């Protein structure tokens, strides 16, 4: 007779083995999970003010994650070139770079599990919303650390995308003030006055341009709501309000959509932006259309149209023909600029070296060292004291010697304040699918029905 757990010749039974395996596996699992901080538990913020500073001779390696190499390289170069490394030779940077989605997914997983959290995360504004879901936010509130220097920042670009319910969870170093880049040489040839004061002026010029040159004056994106967003902010509207609700379901939103629709479908002066399915803003074929003399203006932040002479934009062939101007008015409040895009530096609450991380962030973002990124990429910093620096006020040959720094300095004070939303990705997708694409692709003008459908979907998303 054999009892359970025994077998012939005293061999271990399968049941016994499975029990043993489960026990060992369970033990391994428990030990693997031991250091983690479950989402439900409060993650204690070890901010710079609370963490004990290590002795100056202790080597500290600050780990930083980003989705592009230069996004971390400029931090390291700024530390070396502007004296941080001389002052703190014991602090260095370990750069971890991965593709956009992969690195942000890693960040979410690290935040959710509490395991393998870096000291600095560079979070693209579009992916920040996900971190604002739930009761716990995994980043350190930087408000007190920034302190009075908050007055030195262009807030619409520097902190708003990474702020939620009054707390600041990241700083962006790029002042993404939107402008309109226009091909002045073409308009001069046709006797069209530039810069354009209103969107209506653009319409008038568009007619002449189409007739005389068979060129479109502007392109509007039908699979990306960037154009709508820029025009909405410039009109004094909000993409999201302080509660995170969608802010484009109003007459202002209708007016902007109607302008874009009529320009494309009724008048034929604008075209749909040439993009690809996986890159819906400005892939190479977008810039090819400008090289082929198909489109004469483009609006966006400095990373989009600030340096059109770069090889990855329009590049050689149209030197001296382009200029930058503030956004046209005539819709809503008619602000001269808007904000669009950006990537933060944020400190996770479970970072191992939060104090050193903040030292690096403060040095690279709230001092002249931010100009390192200007030298490398030509960005306009969000740190206002450096906006008069000669580096930012050099003439740009591609824009006929225009000093674009002067324009951005002016726009810095006009930058609208914005809000982030925890449902931003879902809301953007819903707006694009239900309203924007049908309007621009199908010439659908039934805004009331489209808005009602969108409202239903937004409520459903929020209720989940």
């Amino acid at each position, binding site marked *: 007779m054999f009892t359970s757990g025994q077998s012939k010749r005293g061999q*271990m039974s399968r049941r016994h083995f499975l029990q043993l395996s489960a026990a060992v596996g369970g033990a391994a699992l428990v030990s*693997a999970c031991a250091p983690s901080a479950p989402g439900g538990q409060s*993650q204690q913020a070890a901010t710079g003010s609370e963490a004990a500073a290590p002795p100056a001779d202790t080597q500290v390696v600050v780990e930083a994650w980003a989705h592009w190499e230069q996004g971390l390289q400029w931090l390291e170069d700024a530390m070396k070139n502007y004296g941080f490394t001389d002052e703190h030779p014991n602090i260095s940077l370990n750069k971890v770079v991965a593709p956009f989605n992969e690195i942000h*997914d890693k960040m979410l997983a690290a935040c*959710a599990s509490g395991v393998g959290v870096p000291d600095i995360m560079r979070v693209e504004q579009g992916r920040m919303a996900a971190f*604002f879901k739930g009761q716990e936010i995994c980043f350190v509130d930087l408000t007190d650390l920034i302190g009075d220097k908050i007055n030195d920042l262009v807030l619409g670009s520097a902190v708003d995308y990474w702020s939620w319910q009054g707390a600041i969870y990241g700083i962006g170093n790029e002042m993404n003030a939107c402008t309109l880049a226009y091909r002045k040489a073409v308009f001069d040839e046709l006797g069209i006055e530039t810069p354009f004061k209103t969107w209506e002026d653009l319409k008038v010029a568009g007619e002449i341009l189409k007739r005389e040159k068979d060129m479109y004056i502007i392109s509007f994106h039908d699979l990306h709501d960037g154009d709508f967003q820029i025009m909405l902010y410039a009109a004094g509207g909000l993409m999201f309000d302080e509660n995170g609700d969608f802010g484009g379901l109003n007459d202002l939103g209708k007016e902007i959509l109607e302008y874009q629709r009529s320009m494309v479908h009724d008048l034929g002066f604008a075209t749909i932006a040439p993009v690809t399915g996986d890159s*819906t803003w400005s892939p190479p*074929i977008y810039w090819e259309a400008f090289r082929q003399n198909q489109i004469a203006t483009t609006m966006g932040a400095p990373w989009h149209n600030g340096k059109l002479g770069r090889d990855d934009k329009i590049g050689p062939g149209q030197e001296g023909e382009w200029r930058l101007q503030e956004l046209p008015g005539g819709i809503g409040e008619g602000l001269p600029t808007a904000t669009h895009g950006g990537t933060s530096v944020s400190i996770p609450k479970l970072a191992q070296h939060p104090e050193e991380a903040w030292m690096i962030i403060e040095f690279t973002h709230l001092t002249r060292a931010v100009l390192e990124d200007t030298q490398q990429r030509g960005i306009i910093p969000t740190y206002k004291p450096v906006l008069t620096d000669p580096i930012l006020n050099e003439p740009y040959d591609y824009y006929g010697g225009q000093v674009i720094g002067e324009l951005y300095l002016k726009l810095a004070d006009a930058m609208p304040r914005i809000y982030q939303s925890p449902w931003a990705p879902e809301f953007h997708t819903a707006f694009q699918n239900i309203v924007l*694409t049908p309007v621009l*692709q199908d010439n659908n003008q039934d805004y009331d029905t489209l808005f009602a459908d969108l409202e239903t979907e937004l409520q459903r998303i929020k209720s989940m």
Partner: protein
Amino acid sequence: MAVNQSRPLQADVAAKQYSGLGYWWQRNQIKIVPYLYIAPFFILFAIFLAYPVLNSFWISFHKQQGISTPEFVGLSNYINLLADPRFKQSVINSTVYALGSLFLQIPLAFILAVVVHSWLVPWLNLKSFYRLAFFVPLLTSGVVVALMFGILYDYNSGLINSYLVSLFGEGAKIGWLRDPKVVKFSIILLLIWQFTGLNSLYFLAGLQNIPRELEEAAAMDGANAWTILFRITIPLLRPVILFVVITAINGSYQIFTQPYLLTGGGPRDQSISMVMYLYNTGFSYFNLGYASAIGYTLVLIVVTLALINLRFFGAFREDH
């Protein structure tokens, strides 16, 4: 026959010199060692597969958004799925991809295999060449294939539209990846290019296992090629057809890379697959409970379809 139990074995005597754990180990070490050798697999399987699978099932009954304590909501996530237009669209899209596999890709693969097996191979004796040619699309990375087709499908400067414009003028352009009515077909074409060869190889292997004598005997009895195909070849290929159908349908419902890279799921979610929606829900929207519910709904759909296929092909029938 009486067994003499009065003389204890030497091993037992030795073992009794130990006590407790030592005694237990002495008695059992020979039996445990083999299991220790295979234990790493089971431990890793438990940690990295069994636990996540079971845990995600548990999470699917919770509301877990962002970093928060999971809140038990019962079947709410599953009920919400029924009212979710994006989920419905993803199911429709995945089903269309599966139907494309079923009615376009598999018949094409079968025809290709029959042609190669019946005519081209005996005629040209290039079996190895065909095998290689069929397999190359599968060897190519899915990412590379998607990028390549992106170049072909591009509206303004894509190879296909350029050719159409040269033949029929500017109006002949097709929005392969931009037109909601066309985009699914574009992705199905890509899948046909990528997977037809592999399925042909399966059919080819099946065809080569059918004894020639059967076909020859049927031919001698006066059966024509069609009769042989439908009365002998296809019935004997039933297990292969079943395998191909199930793997193709499973693959279609699990498609991710192609729509993700080609269209991002657009325009208007007309190409978003279930797995893509799952990914977006989990990572872009950080709604882990809902994403888990999508995952288990996908499992349910795939298993149900597999069972239907098994029943349809008589896999549960006992052969007498």
